[in-house]
């Protein structure tokens, strides 16, 4: 950097301003790309096939990069105007009266806000809803302030605003299409009323949502964004559908499993036994199984089963060779968790008979012996007929007698009545992913063919599974996908 006194008295010319402008220009050019990475209706996803969630990491970090660039640009010009240009601070004050300087300061403030209020710890404090609304408004204001600051580079800002508008517009359009359009039988808004069930007890409670909705079929493994207008119109969260889409029907059945935590899921749990209105948008995400179905390993932890269950069932239905190695691994806290999807699980167990390559492994991580709970479902007046002497007559279970007849009891679910079905009660530890993967790979490699590994569950499990997959040897190709629930 050179600095020399200019002929005008008190004005030192430096290259600091030049460099500050370089950083500013690059941050402008980076803005539309950063916005693009954050969109849900993602052009990059359409082009590259990479799920939109995977761009989130780069979006966050490029946002921070823009913040750093804005800070350096602001600092650079502050030093030039307040230090190098004399008389100080008169020159600086005069400079600050320019419109572009005012807009520059505003833009810096907005990017500071966006950066601070998108930090995980701050979101935990302000709440997700606050983040979602203010992040969008803040981004638009920031882009607007940038436009005001240097309108000669408006092209990057227009591009950014168009991307935001398109993303929001397409989301809204898809929601309206799902709920109002595409129906032959009825015009106008079609409501989706989800039946809310609470399953489990103690620290292991989930909410199960069920509803029928007139729409086209999605692909197994895809997710929808669910909004509960009676709870909040400002929140919608992604949930993977665990029910199978029906290609031959124009009405689809949706099933979702949500772990009851704080916030909206807790509000939903309080509605157990009632119906709640749902507004859905979707489907999003890649569908499975990909290509021709051959060997499939599906690993799920807890409610991650909503991702793997339909994929395994679809894979088994599509199998070209019934001998293909297909393994369904489900890691659950307690044996009672099998009741989340009891009907589906019974169906899957029945498929063991027709598919010699299918294996089902259940790992229970918090029990040495299966605890058969009194209550597994939403309260009802009818007590469940029980074969278990441990169960008291006061057990309040099950929705209705018709549902009851469809449901296998937990003992039936746990019964080791098939060769390739296993339940391991691990007490207080987790199954080791390398062991799970190695045993599958041994069998799959013996048979040969393309391998697909899919998984979903807690992030720590994702890490273990990724590490295990990075060490496998295969010869016919392997496709791995972890459906993150972050």
């Amino acid at each position: 950097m050179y600095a020399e006194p200019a002929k005008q008295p008190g004005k030192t010319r430096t290259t600091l301003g030049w460099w500050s402008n370089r950083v500013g220009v690059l941050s402008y050019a980076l803005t539309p790309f950063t916005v693009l990475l954050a969109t849900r209706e993602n052009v990059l996803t359409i082009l590259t096939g990479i799920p939109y969630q995977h761009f989130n990491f780069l979006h966050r970090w490029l946002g921070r990069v823009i913040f750093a660039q804005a800070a350096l640009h602001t600092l650079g010009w502050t030093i030039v105007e307040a230090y190098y240009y004399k008389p100080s601070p008169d020159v600086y004050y005069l400079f600050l009266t320019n419109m572009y300087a005012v807009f520059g300061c505003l833009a810096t403030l907005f990017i500071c806000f966006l950066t601070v209020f998108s930090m995980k710890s701050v979101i935990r404090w302000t709440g997700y809803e606050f983040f979602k609304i203010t992040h969008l408004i803040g981004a638009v204001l920031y882009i607007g302030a940038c436009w005001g600051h240097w309108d000669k580079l408006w092209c990057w800002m227009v591009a950014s605003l168009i991307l935001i508008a398109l993303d929001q517009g397409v989301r809204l359009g898809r929601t309206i299409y799902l709920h109002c359009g595409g129906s032959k039988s009825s015009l106008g808004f079609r409501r989706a009323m989800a039946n809310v069930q609470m399953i489990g007890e103690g620290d292991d409670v989930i909410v199960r949502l069920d509803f029928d909705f007139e729409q086209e079929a999605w692909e197994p493994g895809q997710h929808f964004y669910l909004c509960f207008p009676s709870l909040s119109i400002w929140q919608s969260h992604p949930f993977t559908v665990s029910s199978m889409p029906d290609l031959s029907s124009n009405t689809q059945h949706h099933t979702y499993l949500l772990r009851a935590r704080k916030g909206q899921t807790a509000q939903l749990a309080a509605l157990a036994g009632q119906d709640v209105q749902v507004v859905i948008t979707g489907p999003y995400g890649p569908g499975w199984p990909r290509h021709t179905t051959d060997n499939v390993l599906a690993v799920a932890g807890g409610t991650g089963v909503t991702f793997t269950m339909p994929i395994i069932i679809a894979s088994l239905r599509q199998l070209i060779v019934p001998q293909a190695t297909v393994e369904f691994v489900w890691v659950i806290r307690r044996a009672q968790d099998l009741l989340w999807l009891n009907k589906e699980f019974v169906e899957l167990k029945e498929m063991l008979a027709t598919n010699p390559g299918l294996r089902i492994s259940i790992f229970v991580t918090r029990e040495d012996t299966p605890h058969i709970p009194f209550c597994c479902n939403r309260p009802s007046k009818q007590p469940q007929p029980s074969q278990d002497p441990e169960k008291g007559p006061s057990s309040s279970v099950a929705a209705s007698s018709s549902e009851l007849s469809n449901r296998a009891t937990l003992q039936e679910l746990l019964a080791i009545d098939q060769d390739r079905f296993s339940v391991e009660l691990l007490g207080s530890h987790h199954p080791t992913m390398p062991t799970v993967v190695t045993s599958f790979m041994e069998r799959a490699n013996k048979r040969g063919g393309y391998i697909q590994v899919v998984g979903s569950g807690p992030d720590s499990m994702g890490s273990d599974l990724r590490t295990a997959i990075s060490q496998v040897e295969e010869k016919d190709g392997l496709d791995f996908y972890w459906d993150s629930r972050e």
Partner: protein
Amino acid sequence: MAHNMLEPRHSHVELPPGGYMVKHWGYGDEPLPCTSDADTCKYLDGVYVMHDLSMKYSFIMWGVLLGIAVVWVTLRGWRMGGPAQKVGGVIDKVCDSVERVKRKWLLKDAPLKYFFGRTTRLQVAILAIFLGYLLIFS
């Protein structure tokens, strides 16, 4: 408004007699020939040269991004062509080995979990490439 915004820094935007304006994308017009003293002219010239270079760099960045997208889409189209094309083929072999390298080295968790959060090495590697690129061009 835009023109006025520049004035404090370039107090002589009025066209000198017999002079002409040179257009600069993303910046104010440059009046030439320069009528100020030699130092000021040198400084102003530097401002415009530097700005044009900045614009070039930002277009190169987008060029690279679009280039990657085009290559990606082409390869994807090629690979989705079906199993008939999957036999042999240099491109397929290269793609397969890239996949294997990616799985072996980049699928694992990235270090510095407290800093990056739980993510793959691939994500952090892409970020590092991006940061390196920006640092070089800054």
